């Protein structure tokens, strides 16, 4: 039982426990903080998988941003009698049953694939080594530079291994990076945030009750 296994099991239990607590608990504030625990553990699992940048982004954007947004939403909407809105007992049992069956289906499908064969073909951190050569010593999780370069449409993990010859016509083709999706997402974020601010602007509350 190595340290990686220990750490994985610890954070897997925290993740699953947090997720189940979100699904089960009745108080929406407890749900929010179970979500914090769950997403934080997912960030640690990203770090364990050697995805440092993604793990840090998960912490900053999801836990430090989206969940804070949700908690503000809770403060603004779930005041007083609305903090605990209960589902009826039959609903809870039925949804639990459906959840268990769904989990069984998904997990048997996923574990039926022999991932070992695919994993054997990948050296540990191969893409990270190729992209980092000469700048930083190879290290698991050293993904910042390759990710940044891929957003500038330079695929360091693929193009640095190009042979000198190129294809039949002697043209070495470079793979396209993620520059276009990056720009689209940037503009998308701007539009979405302007729209959300406009939608959520302070208006006079409806005078009549439901």
């Amino acid at each position, binding site marked *: 039982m190595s340290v990686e296994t220990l750490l994985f099991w610890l954070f897997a239990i925290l993740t699953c426990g947090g*997720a189940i607590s*979100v699904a089960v608990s009745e108080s929406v504030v407890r749900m929010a903080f179970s979500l914090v625990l769950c997403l934080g553990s997912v960030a640690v699992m990203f770090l364990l998988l050697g995805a440092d940048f993604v793990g840090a982004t998960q912490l900053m954007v999801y836990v430090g941003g989206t969940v804070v947004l949700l908690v503000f939403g809770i403060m603004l909407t779930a005041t007083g009698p609305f903090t605990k809105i209960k589902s009826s007992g039959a609903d809870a049992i039925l949804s639990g049953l459906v959840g268990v069956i769904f989990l069984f289906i998904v997990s048997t499908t996923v574990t039926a694939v022999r991932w070992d064969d695919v994993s054997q073909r990948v050296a540990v951190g191969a893409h990270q080594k190729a992209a980092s050569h000469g700048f930083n010593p190879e290290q698991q999780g050293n993904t910042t530079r390759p990710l940044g370069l891929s957003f500038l449409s330079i695929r360091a993990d693929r193009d640095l291994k190009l042979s000198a010859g190129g294809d039949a016509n002697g043209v070495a083709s470079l793979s396209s990076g993620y520059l276009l999706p990056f720009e689209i997402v940037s503009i998308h974020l701007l539009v979405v945030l302007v729209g959300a601010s406009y939608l959520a602007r302070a208006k006079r509350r409806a005078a009549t009750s439901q």
Partner: protein
Amino acid sequence: MEAVGPNPFLFVGAVLFVCGVVCMTTKRNGIGVLMGVELVLNGASLNFVTFSRFTPLGLDGQVFSLFVIVLAAAEAAVALAIALNFYNNHLTIDVDRGDELHG
């Protein structure tokens, strides 16, 4: 990691996904439904990063995860704005009360 293969990570992703779906379907609080959506998206991005690590998917999995995180944040902002409008109009966040279009 050689010690832990992809299957345990994929199982955790599946648990996250299922909990998110159960949350989306059973919660009456609108914000609770949003939390279910976040869980579903996290299960998917955990799968992406697992495949990035254990299969020749490579860097693409992590890039997809980044995009998922960013787009989920944007979607949470809009969904929250809608939830606030719902609250302002109905004076409750209970989504079962939103039945004006009920046939």
